[in-house]
């Protein structure tokens, strides 16, 4: 009886075409950290402005495998576009191929993805300019261009972080030859707590350390916590990509010298607008104006979109920003 039932169930499979409102999925590296919470606000606001369905969802840890499974299940649900910030560009390449076969538009934001046919790569800033800018700010905060420094990064596989580090290191090799990197970038897995632990370890292993660069938003906060605890505000400079509201207390007491970032809410909004325009046949052009974002730059490769120049938070201006 039960065997017949199961056979009947399996035989009565029906393919269904889901006709629904335009659906754009915006998937961050992970949910639950302030940077990606802010992008969620921007993305969902854009969805409301445009009258479309924006699903902002992602794994609870920076787990590439979980991202793959979520995307596969979302494809079943039926979506029009996937905007992804992958934890590991290689891990998502097979599933982006599946997206291509399902005629789902794929764009990447915040960090680059590989595979499938990524139509647009939405960057918050020009990677080379950003990397070099961070290193300039480090030297400014250290007060000297010779000395030992270390880098605390997010996940070792994150393409965007690695790109900025590479541009920064290349730039420093020629412009600041006396700046000495003490060891390979240390991962903190997008956790301020982990960055804090790793910074304490770095301070213990390299007592002459003069500067720390935190790449990925929780990292400079964690590093600043360690500096604050050890009272090394005047000895060690900390700069990095951190959110203004998180940075405010550390900027004010000097444990964090500069926070260098952009508005992630704006990035979320830009991502949704670009996806929506592409889905509706509106051509993306260099210099076009996006509501709530401003004029964007489209590079000559026809694929990379740059949102704008970086912003710097210091103890003097940080209170103006609410994210």
């Amino acid at each position, binding site marked *: 009886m*039960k065997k017949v*039932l*199961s056979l009947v*169930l*399996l035989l*009565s*499979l*029906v*393919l*269904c075409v*889901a006709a629904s409102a335009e659906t754009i999925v915006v998937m961050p590296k992970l949910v639950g950290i302030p940077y990606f919470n802010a992008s969620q606000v921007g993305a969902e606001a854009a969805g409301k402005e445009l009258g479309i369905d924006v699903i902002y969802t992602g794994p*609870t840890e920076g*787990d*590439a*495998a979980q991202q*793959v*499974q*979520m995307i*596969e*299940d*979302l*494809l*079943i*649900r*039926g979506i029009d576009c996937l905007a992804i910030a992958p934890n*590991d560009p*290689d*891990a998502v*390449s*097979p599933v982006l*191929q*599946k997206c291509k076969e399902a005629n789902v538009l794929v764009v990447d934001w915040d960090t680059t993805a590989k*595979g499938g046919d990524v139509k647009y790569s939405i960057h918050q800033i020009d990677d080379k300019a950003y990397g070099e800018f961070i290193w300039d700010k480090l030297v400014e905060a250290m007060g000297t261009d010779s000395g030992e420094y270390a880098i605390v990064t997010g*996940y*070792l*596989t994150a393409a965007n972080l690695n790109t900025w580090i590479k541009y920064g290191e290349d730039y420093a090799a020629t412009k600041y030859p006396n700046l000495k990197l003490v060891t*390979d970038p240390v*991962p903190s897995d997008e956790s301020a707590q982990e960055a804090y632990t790793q910074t304490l370890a770095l301070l213990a292993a390299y007592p002459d350390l003069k500067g720390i660069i935190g790449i990925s938003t929780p990292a400079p906060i964690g590093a600043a916590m360690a500096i604050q605890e050890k009272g090394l505000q005047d000895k060690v400079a900390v700069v990095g990509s951190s959110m203004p509201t998180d940075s405010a207390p550390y900027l004010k007491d000097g444990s964090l010298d500069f926070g260098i970032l952009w508005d992630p809410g704006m990035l979320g909004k830009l991502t949704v607008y670009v996806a929506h325009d592409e889905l509706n046949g509106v051509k993306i052009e260099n210099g076009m104006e996006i509501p709530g974002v401003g004029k964007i730059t489209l590079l000559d490769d026809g694929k990379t979109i740059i949102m704008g120049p970086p912003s710097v938070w210091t103890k003097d201006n940080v209170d103006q920003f609410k994210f």
Partner: protein
Amino acid sequence: MDGARGHFSRNKNQYFLLALLMLLIAGMSLMAPGKFLTVRNFKNMGFQMAEFGILAIGMSVAIMTGGINLSLVNSAMLSAIAGAFLMRGMNEAGGIPDLVIIASGIAVVMVVSILCGMINGYFVAYVGVASLLVTLGTQTVFNGVSLNITRGSGISGFPELFQRIGAGSVLNIPYTMLIYVAAILAAWYLVERTPWGVSVYMVGGNEKATRFSGINTKAVLMKVYVFSAVMAGVAGVLMVSRYNSARADYGSSYTLQAVAATVLGGTDINGGSGHILGTVTAVCILQVVSSGFNIIGINRNITDVVTGFILVAVLTINYFAARERRHKKA
């Protein structure tokens, strides 16, 4: 041994699980009309289920002997990382045909897996340390070695053909499903139709008595952990193909879930009884709940709560059914 009545009530568990699975499929289909009960979705679940299902089978056999294999997933990833290194190296060297690269990679994965299994088997069977302790130790060692080799990042750079294992299908049936079915058949045959399989149950029931009856329990246990490791190796190959990279921490949640699937499928945690097909049904149940909730759009955390609830409910029902069986005999 229970005899005829025991065999029937054990099978009652299996029918109950099947009915539960059908009920869940029906429920999900109602809650996501036109999306769950589709070829596309079943194909999708087939892709996802295989790697976990094979791991669960590997775990079940260990649990049937009254032991456990906590190092299952970590040995899968260690062997996968070894194979990945080789494949990347051969791919970058250039001039080697893709099939040779892939075959070599898979061979390395299986060899390293078997070595891991033999390490476990040696300590459990010949030295005599409790499997919980041995596999807890090897879990940490394998994980540590993996992290050291990869420095926390992923290994990639394989021939594109390799992705076909995890992404390809024939007649709408994913290759991963075919591999999974082959693993199920092999496991079912070995465990329920060979003398070795009988010894596995006997060792799980009472190891001392089994030894005194003349069976080489050490060899039996060694084979159990090697078999478990072979399953881990196969799962490792599938995972690397699906995610196109090998990382030390893929599948970390699978270890305890595999134990859950095993007990949900009717295997006694103390060993001595259980069915491979029970584990397979349990894996289906867990997959249906996970995919179904994702499609409906329910929070990931609620999925975990529901899965836990199903596990506790089924175990409770099994317990009372077993008690009733004992009372009827008396």
